[in-house]
């Protein structure tokens, strides 16, 4: 698609969404400009706040990368939330180990690996349900989300509960040396940033420039015809689910080891669902994903300023995100309709 068309599309989507939200705000007697300034101030105009943006960006981008794989394979992986949760459980399992004798750095890497594994297994089970059980991946994924939520609740209230307590506040904090290293004046672990950048680069490499990525694409675009090229679409879909789940699980691992330093019931923070919106807005393409993630992260982090300085509810940022995605779909639909009309 030509750059001009893409440009026009972006402008149309933003104008449509922003004008709709602005109209709503003006009807309520709130100045959209003030909101915009507040959101911007709350996200990118100070190093610390930008750190908060990054702490949202990292898991969000990880989940989105995972979703890129599954969308490429033509699958609706709605179970990202559950995969994040399972990843978090996987990481916690390792970080709670006593007397391993391993150096903290090794244990942390092991935890991240285990989170990838746990998320991948959860993704694989949705894949199995689809290929073997004939359960549509949307409902299977959704169901597994709730199962994972149940599992984390049970762990927090049951085997992993704090001494003398049964609280939703989460498990005990991990020992300090198992927190990922954060430099003075930072709030996110540089290691996590490096990790997510590597993962993103790998994702775009695999999806855009590898035999495997091409196979995923082929299986996703036309499973029937892909068999003529010696591809087994079911196997490819299954592998895409494992990778997608694994990356989402990694996001859970990062949440546990870098952000909360313990397992909490809402460890997934809704990033799984948010990532779906991100990838949908990106039109299922790889390149725009980190930028949209950043934008969404800015909205999410900046939204805290709304109640503090303007007494406006934070959910406004969710409204903006939703409006962007919906107008994105509307614009895609209109443009496709036009093309069909010709």
């Amino acid at each position: 698609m030509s750059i001009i068309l893409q440009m026009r599309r972006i402008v149309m989507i933003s104008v449509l969404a922003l004008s709709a939200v602005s109209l709503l705000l003006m009807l309520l007697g709130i100045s959209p400009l003030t909101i915009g300034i507040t959101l911007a101030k709350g996200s990118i105009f100070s190093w610390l706040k930008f750190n908060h943006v990054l702490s949202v960006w990292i898991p969000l981008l990880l989940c989105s990368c995972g979703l890129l794989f599954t969308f490429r394979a033509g699958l609706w992986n709605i179970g990202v939330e559950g995969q994040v949760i399972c990843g978090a459980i996987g990481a916690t399992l390792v970080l709670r180990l006593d007397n391993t004798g391993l150096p903290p750095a090794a244990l942390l890497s092991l935890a991240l690996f285990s989170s990838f594994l746990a998320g991948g297994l959860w993704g694989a089970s949705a894949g199995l349900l689809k290929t073997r059980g004939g359960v549509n991946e949307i409902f299977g994924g959704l169901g597994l989300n709730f199962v994972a939520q149940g599992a984390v609740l049970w762990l927090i209230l049951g085997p992993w509960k704090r001494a003398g307590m049964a609280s939703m506040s989460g498990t005990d904090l991990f020992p300090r040396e198992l927190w990922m290293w954060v430099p003075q004046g930072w709030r996110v672990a540089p290691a996590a940033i490096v990790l997510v950048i590597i993962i993103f680069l790998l994702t775009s490499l695999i999806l855009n420039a590898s035999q495997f990525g091409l196979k995923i694409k082929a299986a996703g675009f036309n499973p029937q015809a892909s068999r003529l090229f010696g591809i087994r679409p079911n196997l490819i879909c299954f592998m895409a689910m494992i990778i997608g789940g694994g990356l989402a699980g990694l996001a859970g691992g990062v949440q546990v080891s870098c952000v909360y330093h313990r397992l909490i019931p809402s460890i997934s923070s809704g990033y799984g669902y948010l990532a779906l919106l991100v990838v949908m807005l990106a039109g299922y393409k790889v390149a725009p994903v980190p930028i949209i993630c950043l934008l969404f992260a800015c909205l999410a982090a900046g939204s805290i300023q709304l109640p503090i300085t303007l007494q406006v509810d934070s959910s406004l940022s969710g409204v903006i995100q939703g409006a962007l995605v919906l107008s994105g779909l509307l614009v895609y639909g209109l443009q496709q309709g036009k093309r069909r009309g010709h």
Partner: protein
Amino acid sequence: MEVSIPSLIAAILVMAAPLVLAALGETLTEKAGVVNLSLDGTILLGAMSGFLVASESQSALLGFIAAASTGASVGAVLAVIGVRLGQSQVAVGFALTFLCRDLAYFLGNPYARQQGPQLETLPIPILSNIPFLGEAFFSHSIVVYVSLLAIPGCYYFLYHTRQGLILRSVGENPDGCWARGINPLKVQVLYTVIGGGMVGLAGAAFSLAVKPGWGHPQGCEGIGWIALALVIFGGWNPVRVAAGAYFFGMLQLLGIYFQDYFTTIPPQIFQVAPFPLMIFALILINLGHKSRNKKLTGWIELFSGRPPKWLGKTYKPA
């Protein structure tokens, strides 16, 4: 806790009433071949608009009307982008879920935790005096009666009226309808809007009757997903869908009673239970269709149904 059976039944009926309305609305939509995934958000938006209008106007009726029209408008958005413009219904529904949820919290924020009108219970004269049954079935608010009546109503509409037959046929084979002079797109749009309206009503049922009030959280979050699951669980049959809703309500309540007996299991687990059950049911359905074993198939057919053939696909007339 000692349980009094009639009051337990009554409690289940009340808790499940909005769920029944939402799931029946979605059943209508899905029977017409459209997936409206936005239930969770629509319910909240309906709850918010219903509460807001009702407390401004001090009329619960106006609140219900507002909620229904809100839900219908959400359905209309899905119908335009997902049915008319042919974008993935799943994608649109998903975006709508989150847009509606946050819009509800945002617009409703000034009204959070405020006093608002509530539906009074309307015991039905004479009937409510019947021992046992009276307490269980005839001493409720209008919402519960509506939800109870909606089940046979929906069933009758789907299986015994001309419009219901058209609705079902569109979900099965829009081409066939087109050949018979029915415009399938119009039908799909209509029932997406009507189904959305019922989901909106379910929202108002929460904020004006079952869990009166508005706030963040309102308490009805997550119900939309359960309603979606119930439609599958109930095999797209209104009666079984409603039965699923009551089953879920019972599980929720039992979770609280079970807290005493199974102290090691957190009661929240019981809220999750319907989902593994649903997946299990889906696997069984699939195995049943694959299997050549007539006995097994027959047994499974009892509590399973097949999705409308065109569910979620976009129809483009030639």
